[in-house]
Each structure stands twice: as structure tokens, then as C-alpha cells.
């Protein structure tokens, strides 16, 4: 393959050849090439299709603002849709395909849209497709959806890793063109911590694309020299291939570093990209400017590009886009393209300067530019055969990042462009072309001065010599001629006609213009087209350009891979795991685990021969109730509360009273939110005069701790209370069942007989010959039960020891399912009942809310809507026929009542199969449930068709008198 359009010069390494394919055809390029420059070097201009009309398109730019040359890069899980060929760095083996075309890029059946374009004017779809009503979802929309979209996703998992990181600096310089280099150099030489980030893989910005001299040498060489000096400074971090995507609050910037995109595969262990959060004291936006086109008929053909891009391909990449080239400009900078191309030996057949009255009014060439029709000041037209046309309508400062805090840019008529407004993100300065200073000298000067000012430096380095040409431009937004379409937003196919129609229909606000025509909503976010569109709207409405204004600039500056934003938090690493002390034992036993928040808890522990989960769970329940079972309850929150006011403090945070609790005892506590709804519950023990241990639910361990700190610091700041979480410090096991004490006696060193250690006792003890431990005689299952805690590192050993030493009682380990069965049999509330919507009264615990003291939630729990006799009450539910099935989430209906909301009696909050009772049982909230014990109703699940006659019973299915737990 020859690189037919490769010319001399450029910053490519011609000693190495890279092979790549586009649409399956092999080509060659060189290191330093982008996909676009390499394809152009091979004479390929056609690279994509537009969104709506499927117009053939080639690259319009040489940078990240590219609207047209979008390709699918790579394949399989690495397939990367909508990749801008103009910034895709070439590597050996690169494979790219065109997108949004069928069957091929050259012949695209959807190109029919272009022929029918008159029917597809802006917003046409709002006016039709309404009849018949059902046809929208069934016919019209599916067709539109299939036709829309650009690239495609493979649906395979992205195999690459992404990282995140945090950087800190005195000065962040965004953009490494002459402005940014000078700013970084000034700050770097002053010893400041500097980060210089640039989206390109080669620093230097436009200097790489120009032939301009800086300090008497070629600008690109000067840039390389500065980069080398900066690289030698330990206080400067150079970050090429790094796009600053947004300015966030208080000097935090987001940046994405493309670590491996220029490689065939990331190196082992290395991420594809890194999202950096950069914390900067000061920042300088030196992001340069983006050239904009001029709208004229058929200005979108492959081969028509921005004049600066044409020049960049020649100067930086040694590529001519066509054999015969023309330039169309309204400003002096466009003329540089003609000069540079001529200097490279490219045949420049016409230079059309609108300031002289010359204009391009139309073009030809379906798959690539063949000719342009030009009109001179006298109105004479002629056709000129060309393969490439460079267009310059002036340069728009890249104000985006400066506008991310919604600062509106202001219009500067001297350069016919918007420049940064006054109120940007605090700490962010703008310099160089981004500030509307468009000469090289101006860039160097403002870059240096910005660094001096931002960092308060004294003295400033001399500036290298460079051109300081004034901007000479006469604004021209579109060429008034003919009835054809002149493109403004090339990707979304928004034309001058669409702007006119928007005006005609009164969509004249710039936001309405955008939303109605889709101007600026494509992957380039209107970087080249927006100003054109609003300027044309200004012309049409007679308003000024400043009065018309811009739309809002939003992060990210250029589109960002979702993987980079997610970093490592994906797959099973989406959230960390929390493992219980018995995890390793349980894993050995083949236990089944369940996610409870970030915890993995043992759900049940199957024994050989058990094929259904219910077999395991039933066995665990029955074995516990028959003899003894052990359950790891470490996940419950534990908070150590000490201080001389600890008791008084607990009286405030619990609805019931704790200051009167005897040392060595524990009590069930009910905690309300200030709105009177139950927040949490748990057992709190008094371990000493000024020392309590609070237990919270697993889910609320963190919120409760936060709440207690709030009460301690904010509400009652002088209380002597100290808090610390000990959730993970102790491995805690529930030991339940008639033989619980007997098993515990095998490990506990002290006397724990009923007399010595009665129900609701709480003590520091020792186990196994002196290991410090805690014992609480509390029961969630209704059995004689204890919770025993040892330092976490001994948890595994304690469990094994209890199982071994207590073997004569056949102790089993039960999981969360059996735990749930037993707590429901006993009528204890848990997750399904503690739903954040229920009061103590709803739970049948209304009497626990003491009115004799002030506590959180006490007052508002008395509001009329929360104390109605007809409100929900916790009840037990049993099927009338023991074979009847229940479902949590079923609703209560009276017999014969229709399943409509007016008849809705409440719902089943939790349901289990009780092997003890021999049927499904449930808890539920039933309206006036306390008055309906004994009534027969229905539990109806309309989603499964289940409709079961049930009896309303006390929620205490098992041992309602509590004889067993006191045994």
C-alpha cells in the first residue's frame, strides 16, 4: 500500500511503519500519525456518515472537536464506538470500521434520507406519527430507533481496567500550547508544584501544526525544548494524553489520562485510562481556540475541512488532503493555510477571501469533493475542480472549562468570537487563545503573566520572540445563496434552513434553537457549529449576537469513557466485601452466603444430601429449638458508650429508659427518629456505672453512630459521653436452644447458671482458660439464648471450640434464613417491619415510648395521624389451610372483597415457613390489626395469582409467655 498523499516533513517517525485496517482494508502509517492523518495519507477522505441524512463525511478537523470522522475502533469487548479518527493515535495492528451505515460506507441504504431531506426538516417528528395511536411504539419509533444512534456496543464486558487517582498542585495548566508551556515554565522555574495537562499525545499545541518561529527556531522545536526542560524539573508533572474534563468546586478538576489507548493492549496490570481528580490552588486555562467553518451549500463533503486542519495535516503529519486545493476564508489566518501548503508544494488553485467579495456558494462530489462553485464580488460564478477545500470562519476561544460554573462568555467583535466572561471558577485564569489572544506572542506573554499573577511571583522570564499579528477578520457566518442546504452542525445535520424554520416557529431563544433543531447536541457538543447557529439566529431575529447568547457549557469537555469514571468499582469489586469471623469456617462447610449491605453472611449451611434450601433451613431451625444452634451475629452494630452522662444520654436517644438499668443487665431499646418513626432497635447493656454497650441493626450501624455523634456534639454538647464503634472488635455468636447453656458452660470459665447469670444478664467473662470475652443473655429466637463475644481474631477458634466441646448436644450452625424463621415465630420486628414508615404503636410497642422524659421523636410521635386507632398494627398471619401459601408483600383483603385500593387492609411484611408450626407464617401490618385477632381474611398477591385465606393471630407464634427464654 502506498501513502499516496504523504508529503515531506511532519512530526512522524518515517523509520517505522505501522499497519492498520479500516473497514477491513489494510493501510500503512507511521508513529505520530492519527488514524485520520494516516487514512488521509493513503488518499482516504470518506470516513463516516452523518446522523440524520447519512451524508458521506470525511474529517473536518484535526482535533478533538471532530464531528464527522467517527469510527468504531477495535472489536469484541474492546469495541469503541464513535471514536474520533482525528485523535485516535495510530498503533501497529489497529483495526477500525466505519459506523452508522449499511451495507457499506460507500453505499449506505439510509442515504435515502438525504434525498428525502425536505420531509425531515427540524422538528418534523413533533407534528406527525400521532395516528393511529398505537403505531408510535409499534411502527414509527422502532424504525426511528434502528436508524438512529451512531456506533454500536458489542455487549461484551470491557476487559480493560481503569484506575482513579488524586493529584495536588500549586498550579494546574490546562493545555500545552505556547500559552500553557510558557505558564508552566514560569511556574516550574519558580519551584512551584505544577501539573501541565494536554489532551494531545504531543505537547506543543498549534506550534506543532504551524510553521511559525518562536525564539528564532521552529515553534515545534521550541516547544520540544520547553517540554524537555519541564520534564527535568522534579516539581513539574507533565501529563500528555490527558484531557481536563471539567472544573468543579473549590479548585478540583477532573482529568482523564489515556494510558494505553495508543497501544494494542495495555501492559500487564496497567489500566487503559485513569481518572485523576486534581486539587489545585490555582489553574490556568490555556486550552487554545477552535476554528469554525462558514456555512455554504454542500459544505460538508469529504475533503472540505477547516483551513487550520488542512494546514495541520500538511505541517504536522506530512499529508496533503488532495492534489488540488482551495482555501475559503474571512480572516488572515486562513491565508496561512494557502502559504503553508504552497511551501509544501501542494497546488493551491484558489484562495477565496470573503473580505474581497469571493465566496464559495456550492460544491460537488458525492463521496468526496470534486469541485467548488465560487462567486466573486461582481457576482460572477465559476466552478473549480479541487479535492480539498480549507475553510476558515475565524477562531472560537475554548471557553468551555471556564464556563463550567455557568459563567456566560461575552462576545468580542474584534475577533468575532466569544471570550471568557468575568465570573469563572474561582482560582481559574484564562490565557492565550482561550482568552481571545490569538497571536503566538500574545499566547506566550499571557501565559507567562497568568502564572506570575496566579502564584504571586516576583519577576518574570523574558519572552522568546514570536509573531504578533493582529486578528483581521470580517465576520461571515453563512453564504447567502440558493435553496440548498448549508451545514452548521455537521454531525446532527442541522442546516441554515433549520435555523430559519426555528425562527419562523418562534423557537428563537438559543436554548429553544438547540433543543428544537438538535444544534450542538452531537458528540462534539457544537464546538465548531454552535456559534454559527446562534449568529445566524441573531441575524434572523435582528438581535445582536451578545443578546442572543450561548447555551450552557457543561462537563465533560470531551466525552469520557464510562469505565474511567467507574474505575475499579465494577464486577465483584463494585463494593468491598465485609466478611464475618466465621466466614472461613462456613466456607469450609460449603455454606451459602447472602449479601447484607457489604457483609457476606451465612444464609444456611447445607449438609450432605440436602438438595433444597428449605431442607437445610428447616433442619437448622428444628435442631436449634430441639437442642442448640449457633449463629454469627457479628454484623450487628456495637457502640461503646462511656462517660458520666452515658445513662442520661441513652434516655434521650432511646424512647425507653436506660439510666435505671442495673449494671450487669441489658435491655431492649427502641430508637425513634425525630419525626416519631422507629429508626432502629437493639439491645443495650450496662457493663459498668458509666459504660454501656449498644447494639444496632446491621443495616443501621453507621447511621445510628452518626446520629449519636450528632446528639452528643450538637444537641447536648456538654454531656460527658464518649463513643466508639466496636462492631468489628468482637466476634459475636448467638447460642440458642434448650442446651445453649450446656454448650456455653464448656467454654465459659465462670458460673453461668440461671441463678448466677439470669435472663437479660450482661457480663465481662473469660473463656477457654482466661480469654477476655463478653456474655449477654438475650434471645432473638425465643429460646434460652446467649450472645457470646470474643476478640475477633479468636472468633473462628471459639466457634470450632463450641462445636467440638459441645458435640454431645449436636450443636448446629444456622444462617440468616433460620434466624429469620425463629425471629418471626417469636414475633420480633426486623427489616420488613423496620421500614422507616412505622411507629412504635404500629409495631405494638407503643408503650415503650416514655412521655416522662424528653427523647428524640417523643413529641412528634404523638401527632394525630400517627396515633389513630385504625392505623396499622403488627399481627401474625397463618393460612387457614396449613398447606396454604403466603408471600411477603401480599395485601390483606376481607373475604369477598374486590382487590381494589379502597379494600386494602395492609400487607405481609415478612414470611417464612415454620417447621415448628408446620406451615407458612407471616408478620404483617394490618389496619386496626390489634382489633382483628382471630379474624379470617385473605392474603392476596395479585402478581402471582396467590389468594390465601388466613387467620389473623398474635405476632408471637412461639412460646408467647417467654417461658423458654427464661429457662
Amino acid at each position: 500500500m502506498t501513502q499516496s498523499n504523504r508529503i515531506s516533513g511532519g512530526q512522524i517517525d518515517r523509520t517505522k511503519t505501522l499497519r492498520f485496517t479500516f473497514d477491513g482494508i489494510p493501510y500503512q502509517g507511521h508513529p505520530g500519525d492519527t488514524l485520520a492523518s494516516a487514512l488521509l495519507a493513503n488518499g482516504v477522505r470518506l470516513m463516516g456518515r452523518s446522523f440524520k441524512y447519512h451524508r458521506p463525511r470525511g474529517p473536518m478537523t484535526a482535533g478533538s472537536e471532530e464531528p464527522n470522522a467517527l469510527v468504531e475502533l477495535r472489536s469484541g469487548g474492546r469495541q469503541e464506538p464513535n471514536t474520533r479518527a482525528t485523535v485516535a493515535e495510530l498503533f501497529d495492528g489497529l483495526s477500525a470500521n466505519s459506523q452508522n451505515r449499511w451495507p457499506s460506507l460507500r453505499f449506505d441504504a439510509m442515504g435515502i434520507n438525504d434525498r428525502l431531506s425536505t420531509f425531515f426538516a427540524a422538528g418534523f417528528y413533533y407534528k406527525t406519527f400521532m395516528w393511529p395511536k398505537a403505531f408510535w411504539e409499534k411502527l414509527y419509533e422502532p424504525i426511528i430507533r434502528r436508524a438512529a444512534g451512531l456506533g454500536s456496543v458489542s455487549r461484551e464486558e470491557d476487559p480493560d481496567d481503569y484506575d482513579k487517582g488524586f493529584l495536588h498542585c500549586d498550579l494546574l495548566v490546562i493545555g500545552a500550547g505556547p500559552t500553557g508551556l510558557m505558564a508552566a515554565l514560569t511556574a516550574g522555574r519558580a519551584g512551584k508544584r505544577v501539573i501541565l495537562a494536554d489532551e494531545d499525545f504531543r505537547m506543543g499545541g498549534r506550534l506543532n501544526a504551524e510553521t511559525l518561529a518562536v525564539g528564532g527556531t521552529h515553534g515545534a522545536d521550541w516547544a520540544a525544548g520547553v517540554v524537555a526542560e519541564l520534564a527535568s524539573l522534579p516539581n513539574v508533572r507533565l501529563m500528555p494524553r490527558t484531557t481536563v474534563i471539567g472544573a468543579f468546586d473549590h479548585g478540583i478538576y477532573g482529568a482523564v489520562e489515556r494510558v494505553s489507548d495508543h497501544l494494542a493492549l495495555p501492559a500487564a496490570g496497567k489500566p487503559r485510562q485513569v481518572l485523576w481528580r486534581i486539587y489545585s490552588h490555582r489553574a490556568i486555562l490555556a486550552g487554545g481556540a477552535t476554528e469554525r467553518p462558514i456555512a455554504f451549500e454542500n459544505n460538508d463533503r469529504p475533503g472540505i475541512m477547516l483551513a487550520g486542519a488542512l494546514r495541520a495535516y500538511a505541517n504536522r503529519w506530512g499529508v496533503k488532503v488532495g492534489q488540488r486545493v482551495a482555501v475559503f476564508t474571512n480572516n488572515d489566518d486562513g491565508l496561512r493555510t494557502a502559504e503553508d501548503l504552497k511551501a509544501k508544494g501542494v497546488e493551491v488553485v484558489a484562495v477565496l477571501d470573503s473580505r474581497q467579495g469571493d465566496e464559495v456558494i456550492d460544491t460537488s462530489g458525492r463521496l468526496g469533493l470534486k469541485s467548488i462553485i465560487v462567486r466573486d464580488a461582481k457576482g460572477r460564478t465559476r466552478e473549480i475542480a479541487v479535492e480539498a477545500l480549507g475553510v476558515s470562519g475565524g477562531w472560537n476561544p475554548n471557553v468551555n472549562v471556564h464556563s463550567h460554573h455557568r459563567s456566560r462568555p461575552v462576545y468580542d467583535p474584534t475577533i468575532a468570537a466569544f471570550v471568557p466572561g468575568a465570573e469563572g471558577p474561582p482560582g481559574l485564569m484564562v490565557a492565550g487563545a482561550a482568552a481571545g489572544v490569538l497571536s503566538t506572542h500574545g499566547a506566550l506573554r499571557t501565559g507567562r503573566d497568568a502564572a506570575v499573577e496566579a502564584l504571586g511571583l516576583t519577576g518574570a522570564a523574558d519572552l522568546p520572540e514570536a509573531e504578533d499579528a493582529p486578528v483581521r477578520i470580517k465576520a461571515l457566518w453563512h453564504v447567502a445563496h440558493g435553496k440548498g442546504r448549508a451545514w452548521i452542525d455537521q454531525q446532527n445535520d442541522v442546516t441554515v434552513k433549520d435555523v430559519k424554520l426555528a425562527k419562523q416557529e418562534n423557537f428563537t431563544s438559543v436554548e429553544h434553537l438547540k433543543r428544537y433543531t438538535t444544534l450542538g447536541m452531537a458528540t462534539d457538543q457544537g464546538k465548531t457549529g454552535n456559534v454559527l447557529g446562534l449568529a445566524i439566529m441573531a441575524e434572523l431575529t435582528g438581535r445582536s449576537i451578545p443578546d442572543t447568547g450561548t447555551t450552557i457549557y457543561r462537563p465533560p469537555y470531551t466525552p469520557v469513557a464510562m469505565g474511567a469514571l467507574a474505575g475499579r468499582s465494577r464486577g465483584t469489586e463494585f463494593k468491598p466485601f465485609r466478611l464475618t469471623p466465621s466466614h472461613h469456617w462456613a466456607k469450609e462447610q460449603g455454606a451459602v452466603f447472602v449479601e447484607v449491605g457489604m457483609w457476606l453472611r451465612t444464609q444456611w449451611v447445607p449438609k450432605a444430601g440436602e438438595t433444597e434450601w428449605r431442607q437445610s433451613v428447616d433442619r437448622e431451625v428444628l435442631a436449634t429449638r430441639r437442642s442448640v444452634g449457633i449463629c454469627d451475629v457479628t454484623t450487628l452494630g456495637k457502640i461503646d458508650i462511656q462517660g458520666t452522662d452515658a445513662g442520661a444520654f441513652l434516655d434521650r436517644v432511646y424512647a425507653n429508659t436506660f439510666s435505671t438499668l442495673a449494671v450487669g443487665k441489658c435491655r431492649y431499646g427502641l430508637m425513634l427518629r425525630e419525626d416519631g418513626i422507629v429508626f432502629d432497635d437493639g439491645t443495650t447493656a450496662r457493663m459498668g456505672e458509666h459504660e454501656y454497650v449498644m447494639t444496632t441493626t446491621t443495616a443501621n450501624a453507621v447511621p445510628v453512630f452518626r446520629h449519636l455523634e450528632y446528639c452528643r456534639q450538637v444537641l447536648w454538647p456538654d454531656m460527658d459521653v464518649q463513643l466508639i464503634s466496636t462492631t468489628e472488635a468482637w466476634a459475636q455468636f448467638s447460642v440458642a436452644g434448650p442446651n445453649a447453656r450446656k454448650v456455653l458452660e464448656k467454654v465459659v470459665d465462670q458460673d453461668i447458671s440461671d441463678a448466677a447469670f439470669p435472663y437479660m444478664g450482661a457480663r465481662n467473662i473469660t473463656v477457654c482458660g482466661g480469654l477476655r470475652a463478653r456474655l449477654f443473655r438475650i434471645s432473638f429466637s425465643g429460646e434460652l439464648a446467649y450472645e457470646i463475644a470474643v476478640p475477633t481474631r479468636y472468633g473462628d477458634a471459639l466457634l470450632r471450640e463450641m462445636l467440638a466441646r459441645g458435640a454431645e448436644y449436636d450443636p448446629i450452625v444456622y444462617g440468616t434464613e433460620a434466624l429469620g424463621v425463629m425471629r418471626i415465630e417469636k414475633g420480633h420486628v426486623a427489616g420488613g417491619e423496620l421500614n422507616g414508615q412505622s411507629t412504635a404503636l404500629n409495631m405494638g410497642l407503643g408503650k415503650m415510648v416514655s412521655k416522662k422524659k424528653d427523647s428524640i421523636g417523643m413529641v412528634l410521635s404523638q401527632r394525630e395521624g400517627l396515633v389513630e386507632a385504625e392505623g396499622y398494627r403488627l399481627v401474625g398471619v397463618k393460612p387457614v389451610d396449613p398447606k396454604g401459601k403466603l408471600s411477603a408483600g401480599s395485601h390483606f383483603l376481607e373475604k369477598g372483597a374486590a382487590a381494589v385500593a379502597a379494600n386494602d387492609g395492609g400487607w405481609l411484611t415478612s414470611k417464612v415457613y415454620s417447621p415448628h408450626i408446620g406451615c407458612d407464617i407471616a408478620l404483617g401490618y394490618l389496619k386496626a390489626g390489634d382489633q382483628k385477632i382471630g379474624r379470617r381474611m385473605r392474603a392476596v398477591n395479585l402478581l402471582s395469582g396467590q389468594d390465601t385465606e388466613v387467620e389473623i393471630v398474635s405476632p408471637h407464634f412461639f412460646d408467647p409467655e417467654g417461658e423458654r427464654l427464661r429457662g
Partner: protein
Amino acid sequence: MIIHHPILGPRDAQEFVYLGDAALIDRPDGMTAGVEVFHDWLYNRDNPAGEHRELWYHEQGDRSWLVVTRNTVTHEITRVELARDVARSKGRSK
């Protein structure tokens, strides 16, 4: 955002948990105030567009509750105090 913690200096707001208007410090006394007073305190807000004193908790830090004075339009933070000090200055004690 960055919150200049009065003890620890600049800290990323990500380390904090937000509660809301610092007027919540002025909790009525449940033994003397009734439902109406509690209702107004708990539910109604000034919700200003501008300077706002608000409670933040340094959960991934030193567990201090802070009163942050922050502009809700610009997000500029002009003052950060320990909530405990603010509460005491308002006469809260035990």
C-alpha cells in the same frame, strides 16, 4: 467541594455527610414544647438562595459535626465552625 475543617484544614467534601440547615441545632425541649413548635423546627426551612449555615459530619475523618457557611448559588464557603462550639454559643448544654 473542599471544606476547611477548623482542626484539620482543607478536606474533600466527599468525606462528609450532609444533614441540612444549622437551625436544626435549636431543638426545642420536648418537655415544654408541643407538636406545633417541633413541627415548625423539623419541617420548615428558609432554604435561601445565598448564604446558608448548614450541618456537615466528617464521617470519613474525625467525626466532628461542623457548621459550614456556604453560598448555595456559588458554593463558596466563607466559614467553618465546630458545631459543638456553635451549639454552646446558642446556650445548649446538657
